[in-house]
């Protein structure tokens, strides 16, 4: 059983500070939805408003079409997984998992049965008698999930639960979380500042900045068609090229920059006029070194400053004529041994792989 969650014009204020500002979002039942944003952007506040620990100053939270105002966290059909998991250290694993059943007066035998079922779900069969501190990081993580699922909540809320794990484990847990979500088929609302986590797991994401939602959409749509310069630079990496709009031809826009004119694609929601200050964005992986016979909409002269080897890709840092810094990535499969610092070369990118937006705040400022 899953439930949809609706935030209607939700604002949360602390004194004169807006932790969340007029947030409107409708999360569908059974969806894996992520709030993505830098620390302090208000995403945890929203999660606390949904779980019932924080009353919205304005607006309302609806779960399953029911207004939740005045309903405490212990009465809502939600379960929250805390950032530090908050497992109960003095209880055994089984007791932890069955705690929500214990407080509902479920008999000891039934509790044990349900705990065993959940232990099986998280692949920890037979480890119910252990104390929490005897488990590894990943096992604790799974126990926290089982404990949250024990009451069969309609919505599971996750507050950056993977942030304490090391890289490999984090990647494995992403897959596991996604699988568990499919199996139990309930709404997952996930909070993270890690765009990799958000993109790999979610059906849709909401990118937040300073208490407001900048963009909501499916992961690829947000990544490929950012609506604001903040989203363009927060979700994934992006090279901004600042300039003025020179020509508009349907959805193709030519921008005039100190480093030349570039053709870019306009987002239909963000209308630009000739003469407007704008930023064209091009991602590091969309910049190519042209080979014979290649033709690109845009060509750009760069001077290589430095590079780093990341394994699957090689990152190059270069400067343009105007001094603007730019980053591009070349797959390791392509031989780039001839390129080193000081090398001058030309890069190309397609207009369809570049988006142009009105000038505004970037995430990397």
């Amino acid at each position: 059983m899953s439930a949809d969650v609706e935030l209607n014009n939700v604002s949360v204020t602390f004194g004169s500070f807006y932790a969340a500002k007029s947030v409107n979002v409708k999360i569908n039942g059974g969806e894996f939805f992520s709030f993505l944003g830098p620390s302090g952007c208000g995403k945890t506040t929203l999660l606390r408003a949904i779980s019932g620990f924080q009353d919205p100053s304005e607006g309302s939270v609806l779960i399953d079409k029911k207004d939740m105002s005045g309903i405490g966290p212990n009465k809502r059909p939600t379960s929250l997984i805390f950032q530090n998991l908050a497992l109960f250290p003095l209880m055994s694993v089984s007791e932890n998992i069955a705690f929500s059943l214990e407080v509902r007066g479920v008999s000891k035998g039934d509790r044990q049965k349900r705990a065993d079922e959940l232990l099986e779900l998280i692949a920890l069969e037979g480890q119910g008698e252990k104390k929490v501190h005897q488990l590894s990081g990943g096992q604790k993580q799974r126990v926290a999930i089982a404990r949250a699922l024990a009451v069969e909540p309609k919505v599971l809320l996750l507050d950056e639960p993977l942030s304490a794990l090391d890289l490999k484990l984090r990647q494995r847990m992403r897959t596991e979380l996604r699988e568990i979500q499919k199996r139990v088929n309930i709404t997952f609302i996930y909070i993270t500042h890690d765009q990799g986590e958000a993109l790999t797991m979610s059906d849709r994401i909401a990118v937040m900045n300073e208490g407001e939602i900048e963009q909501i959409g499916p992961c690829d749509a947000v990544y490929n068609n950012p609506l604001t310069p903040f989203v363009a630079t927060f979700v994934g990496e992006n090279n901004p090229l600042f300039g003025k709009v020179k020509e508009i031809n349907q959805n193709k826009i030519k921008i005039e920059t100190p480093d030349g004119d570039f053709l870019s694609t306009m987002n239909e929601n963000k209308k630009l006029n000739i003469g407007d200050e704008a930023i064209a964005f091009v991602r590091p992986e969309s910049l190519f070194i042209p080979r014979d016979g290649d033709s690109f909409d845009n060509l750009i002269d760069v001077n290589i400053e430095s590079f780093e080897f990341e394994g699957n890709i090689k990152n190059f840092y270069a400067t343009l004529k105007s001094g603007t810094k730019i980053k591009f990535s070349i797959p390791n499969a392509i031989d780039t041994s001839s390129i080193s610092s000081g090398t001058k070369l030309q890069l190309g990118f397609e207009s369809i792989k570049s988006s142009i937006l009105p000038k505004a705040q970037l995430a990397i400022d």
Partner: protein
Amino acid sequence: MGNYFFTQPFFKKNGKAVAIYFLVAIVFWFVFLVIIPQLYMLDLSFRSNVPPLARGGPQDYYTMEHYQHFVFGSKTSLDAFNFVDLGVFGRTILVSIMVTIANLLFCYPIAFYIAKIANPSTARLLIVSLIIPFWINELLRSFALRILFANEGVINNFLTGIGVIDQSILFITYDVGLYTGLVYAYILLMMFPLYNAIESLDINQIEAAKDLGSSSLRTHWRIVIPHAKPGIVSGCTMVFMLTVGALATPVVLSSPNTLWFPQLIYQWFNMNDNWSRGSAYSIILLIISVIFVLAMMRIFKVKIGEIVK
């Protein structure tokens, strides 16, 4: 030999001067202030009561008579047991247990409020206002309560003044004053261990319990109290030991016809000039205190190391 001594890690870590100070201070404290006086008392409690000049003479011999006196009374008494002293002892233990429980019930909500609910400035204000009254000496605080509870005291005068009662309530006679005074006397020694223990609980634990559907009461029972157990045991043992050994408060506040066990000890030492018997009674009190600590540790399954944390 000396060189070997000074090359030990303890000396290297702290430096010679500090290390020697630590050793001397600890040895002095432990040997001269704890072990020797207690051993002397223990020895004295098994000796016959003789004037100092007769010490070591034929009248100075080892005996169980003081302990026998506590249980069976004087040899000339017709009663089978020393009902008076045993009664005082039993009542002192019982009342001390009640005082300890009252303290715990009183302090727990306040400690929880200060540690987990109040904002930092309110918490500071509350802690300061808890401490300030204790800048006044215990004896003076007891007298203040006496003035409050006396037959012609503040409370009685006020109640008769507004016409609620026509006769004074005998607070002192019925030991209401004593109980209040005892609860008040060592309340901070319950408050601070409790506060420290609750304060160290991760607030997410409480929220997690709540999120999983637990009521406030059950969250306290299953999460907060188990976590605060060492603090509870620590507070209870300290309050019990100090209450059971209190002298100033009972002297000022107990009714004329009740005695507190330390008053009895005081009488043997100072009024009856029988140091041996006083020592025997002190040892009995000490044993009971130790038994209480061990019982608390047993009941709450806490180790001594957790209590002193």
